[in-house]
């Protein structure tokens, strides 16, 4: 079979490219909302953890956060996805996309938390002490002095986490969500030609990641504008 013929068979016949286009939409939707949920959860956990480590306050929330980190980082995301779908929301009628957003968001939150905590701890404790001795309270010091520096430090790692999350959503097919990977699987299951659908899926992921990396690069440059060179 010639290349143009297999392109026709895999993508054009029966509008099969739609499986990829719709899949990409679903993948991006899940990724965007999961990243948002993950960031919120991650920052919350990171602040609790670092506050406990530096001031020994918030002991119980810290324990809960550590439990969350242990459980989520200690189990595979596919298993978490299936547990959320079939056990936690077992008899509840809930949109599968929402299940995926929750599963990937909660999963990502654990990794974001440790990245951000690393960022907060990397800001010299002298900065915190300086803020406090200038009369700012702990919260003000965190918001105006520590966090801006921390976020700038962890931006590459956070970007990395977004990329990982985007690719991790490829297991959403386990709960019959037609994401990008599953779109390729469906085409393969119709045409039985593994080569082109897999390559197309890989290429689309790659393009999304490259675009994402570029955008974060621009953001990093903007944030670095007032750095000393």
């Amino acid at each position: 079979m010639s290349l143009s013929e297999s392109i026709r068979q895999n993508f054009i016949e029966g509008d099969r490219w739609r499986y990829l286009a719709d899949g990409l939409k679903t993948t991006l939707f899940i990724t965007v909302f999961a990243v948002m949920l993950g960031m919120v959860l991650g920052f919350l956990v990171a602040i609790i953890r670092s506050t406990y480590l530096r001031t020994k306050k918030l002991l119980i929330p810290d324990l809960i956060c550590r439990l969350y980190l242990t459980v989520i980082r200690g189990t595979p995301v596919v298993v978490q996805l299936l547990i959320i779908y079939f056990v936690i929301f077992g008899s509840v009628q809930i949109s599968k996309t929402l299940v995926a957003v929750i599963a990937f968001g909660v999963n990502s939150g654990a990794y974001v938390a440790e990245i951000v905590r690393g960022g907060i701890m990397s800001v010299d404790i002298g900065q915190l002490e300086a803020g406090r001795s200038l009369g700012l309270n702990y919260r003000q010091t965190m918001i105006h002095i520590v966090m801006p520096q921390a976020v700038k430090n962890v931006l590459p790692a956070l970007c990395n986490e977004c990329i990982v999350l985007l690719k991790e959503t490829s297991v959403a097919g386990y709960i019959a969500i037609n994401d990008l990977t599953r779109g390729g699987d469906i085409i393969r299951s119709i045409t039985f030609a593994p080569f082109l659908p897999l390559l197309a899926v890989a290429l689309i992921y790659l393009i999304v990641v490259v675009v994402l990396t570029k955008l974060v690069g621009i953001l990093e440059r903007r944030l670095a504008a007032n750095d000393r060179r």
Partner: protein
Amino acid sequence: MRMNKLFAGFSVLALSAMMLSGCGGPPPNKVHSKDDLKGKNVGVQLGTTGDTLAEDIENAKVEKYNKAADAVQALKQGKIDAVIVDLETAKSFVEKNNDIRVLDEEFADEEYAIAVKLDNQALQEELNGALKALTEDGTLQDIKANYEGDEQGQHPYQVKTNASRDKGKLTMATNAEFPPYESHDDNGSVVGFDVDMMNAVCDYLGYELHIDDMQFESVLPAVQSGKADVGVAGLSVTEDRQKNVLFTDNYAVTHQVIIVRKK
């Protein structure tokens, strides 16, 4: 003070998650015939003939699971309205779950056959010869009786330890999620009708059977690419598939059925 608030917040979250999982059963069954499937959520296993059939149902939303068992689980929990799957597989699910049943209405007959690589006519002929001989001496009928009918489990196929293995390894690609044709037993080995049949075929022809368990939609690509010599996974012969692999003579006739919740 703030610590208590946070703690209370977490407790409420945990409690509501527990409540969510406990409350509310699945909605009542609305599918009583093939026609009722229109506009419903229909679960299938990706790439099966049930998948193809479901795609043709008007306005139906087809949910493609990796495993037929996951589709059945979703049906039981009310996430979908019906599952389309092969008759024998449907029976084994219904046996294990008392809240689902098989509708009497059936789809057209289809034939199971062994898939081999498109250019491997020699193997196709060899397998056809073996299937013919095993049908004539009653071996295949015995194996079949071991998996369906009144004498289940009474005719297990014993691999012949003294059979020749001169022709080397024959790799069989399958998806062990498809009882009674292939599934995992309590020890985790792949068992079922297809496995017994292939053991008999290999004993007859002098091959050593090697089973490779994979996702269903990977079975045919594995055969096409030569990673496996044969695909034996309750594969129905369809026109689309015949473009990509050779099929032997059929070894079983079956059809697709609809599983729904009892209530």
